[in-house]
């Protein structure tokens, strides 16, 4: 009987551990994008190459939209992996966020260009419409320009394998099946 009493601390701990386990899966940092399952906001902007681009130009096939800036070291960290994804044939658009275009051009020249096109957003207005909370951030859009996923923070092999690629493949298969 009194031996059983000694199990009380263990039971309390197990209850707490279950709570933590549940808590981990909740991910308090997850912030659904205001745009999830809604089309990209309409915009017309200049690209890094000086051309003009609008939201409709991003349609046609599933793609990643990567928000980046030269002032953002995590963007530097993820850049090599974006190059790798581009080599594998993933379409990536960049949004150069609150940045200096000249610095951005130097950056692309130095580190390689994984982007199909780079949308300039020096004022951050497009970012605001998108609900960007920081850089880097990456959005997954489908062929119709609808946002399916948003990832905050750098994209690396793990994020790609676990988060982006599964959704990306579904979209691609859906697109080819259509």
């Amino acid at each position, binding site marked *: 009987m009194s031996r059983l009493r000694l199990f009380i601390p263990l039971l309390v701990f197990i209850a707490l551990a279950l*709570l933590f386990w549940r808590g981990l899966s909740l991910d308090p940092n997850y912030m659904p994008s205001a745009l999830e399952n809604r089309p990209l906001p309409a915009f017309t902007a200049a690209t890094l190459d000086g051309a003009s681009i609008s939201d409709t130009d991003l349609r046609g096939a599933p793609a990643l939209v990567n928000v980046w800036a030269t002032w953002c070291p995590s963007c530097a*960290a993820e850049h090599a992996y974006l190059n790798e994804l581009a080599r594998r044939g993933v379409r990536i658009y960049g949004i150069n966020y609150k940045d200096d275009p000249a610095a951005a051009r130097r950056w692309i020249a130095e580190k390689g260009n994984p982007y199909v096109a780079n949308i300039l957003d020096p004022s951050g207005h497009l970012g605001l419409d998108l609900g960007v909370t920081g850089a880097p951030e990456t959005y997954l859009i489908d062929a119709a320009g609808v946002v399916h996923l948003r990832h905050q923070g750098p994209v690396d092999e793990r994020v790609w394998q676990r988060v982006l690629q599964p959704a990306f493949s579904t979209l691609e298969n859906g697109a080819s099946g259509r």
Partner: protein
Amino acid sequence: MIVELGHFALILAFGLALAQAALPMAGVLRGVRAWSGAAVPLACGQFLFVLVSFACLAHAFLTDDFSVRLVATNSNTLLPAWYKFSALWGNHEGSMLLWLTILAGWSSAVALIGKDLPIEMRARVLSVMGMIAVGFHLFVLLTSNPFLRSFPNVPEEGRDLNPLLQDIGLVMHPPMLYLGYVGFSVAFSFALAALWSGRLDTAWARWSRPWTTAAWLFLSVGITLGSWWAYYELGWGGWWFWDPVENASFMPWLAGTALLHSLAVTEKRGLFRSWAVLLAIMTFSLSLLGTFLVRSGILTSVHAFATDPERGSFVLAFLGVVVGGSLTLYALRAPQSSGPAGYSLLSREAALLANNVLLVVAMATVLLGTLAPLVVSAMDLGRISVGPPYFNLMFVPLMSLLAVAMGVGPLMRWRDSSGASLRAMLAVPAASCLVIAIAFPFTYAGHWHAGAALTAGLTAWLAATLVAGLRQRLRERGGLRALPMLGFAYWGMVVAHVGFAFSMAGAGLTSIYSDERDVRMSAGDSVTLGAYEFSFLRTRHVDGPNYSAERGEFTVKNVSGERVRHLKAEKRDYHSQMGNVMTEAGIAPGFLRDLYVSLGEPIGDGSWAVRVHHKPFVRWLWIGGVLMGAGGALTLFDRRYRRPSAQQPVR
């Protein structure tokens, strides 16, 4: 090259930790003395290699090796060398390496200082510490490797250390805190070793007491430093926010304080054994829990490290193994009953029991408040936060009761004290408590305040009971001549209790009597706060090593128009990062009051938003914390710890 060397040394240290966990255990089980004895060189070897690894990372920081990702994201060439060094632990990966270094340090300290322990006991303790080390090594190597390089894109400049962390307080705070947190692993390992061997006796309590005290004193100092840092560096004059990270360090402190006192009972009287073991497990578990809460991202807060659910899962699994395992062992092996209680309500045992109950309830209160948001969201009831009023409401009665018990406890005798002699000893303290409680609010502020009366009364109570205790001791031992013979343990207790009184008085009185105003001021304006007049003289542009700042200059005059102090408050803009603005407060410290000015933001037309504070007794908080640490340190010099082997039964 050096960076790879560091990584390699860490892997070797991991191997040694594995051996430290396994070999002595096998030695104990198989009765091979040589294997048990190997615990000592293994623990020292592990420490040596972790230290090499730490030194390599420090080298990378000091030489601005930005090819190391950690250095690139947390340091900068402009950073003063001292902060480059401390930047090492201003981030998740580096701080885990510091954690590991300290853990290995404690275990080699047990190996070297614990020479008088029976070889089997030492083997058991070091084996448990080895297991903990294995867990943390795996955590660092698998999820938080600080030595990752970022080839081929090596940045030319690092991103800089968060300016909030560029401060002497933050250089010292984490190492102290970790020395405390991790130090409790020693008490934990002793407890598990004792459960394992079935020898949960007074010798166990005597062995683990100094280690517990050492960890406790570091944690006390660490928490004090953190509070002091928050006060002057966050710029807004707060000294405790009930933030999850603060709570994470406070809970082990509460449990550790309870442990310290229950070990005293176990050592002297052989009672509370099962309870003391549980507290030892609880204290270290709460340290681990703190790590989990801070690093899993399950709760976020000021100091939150970059969080990662994978790390969270790892720490949770580790927590499950360590805490679940030790509590299972406890349930199966703890002694069921300590026999007849053998003490009366008026005994030191009873007073220490009250202390334990109050401290554990206080700890549970903090735990509940910290976890409530998690519980609510796990039940899908919405997102909540628990405000500081909750904690304050709980702590006032709990700490008041604790202070009452704390006054009586040292005056009581073991087993039973006579009610008459207690009454005689308590008459003066009770009277002085009443007089001060009534007199203080009127003499200090000119009007009644119940909270201030309570605080002042309890402070007087603690002081007077300590004096009464001293008198009693001296009378028993033959007058003042006995003064040098009272022993370090006694003086340690006195100093630590005085420290508590200081902290309690500081917390109470500064909360009650602090005065602050947010005002809009232009150069030449003045504002009156209580008995002080703050005048805004001018702002000037100044340049620091890695920032530029607007410096506001103020003079403070007292009622009679004398100039009391000249204060400089800065608004700093750190170059290396966009938008890293920091408020550097101007503080005139004093024993009885601080004057505090911080610059808010410029509001067009040359005026500034300015916050001025008058904070009476705020220093007492930290004086108290330092005294508690000093008290802990004093007890370590007590005679009986110097030659423990003399008192040990031969086995």
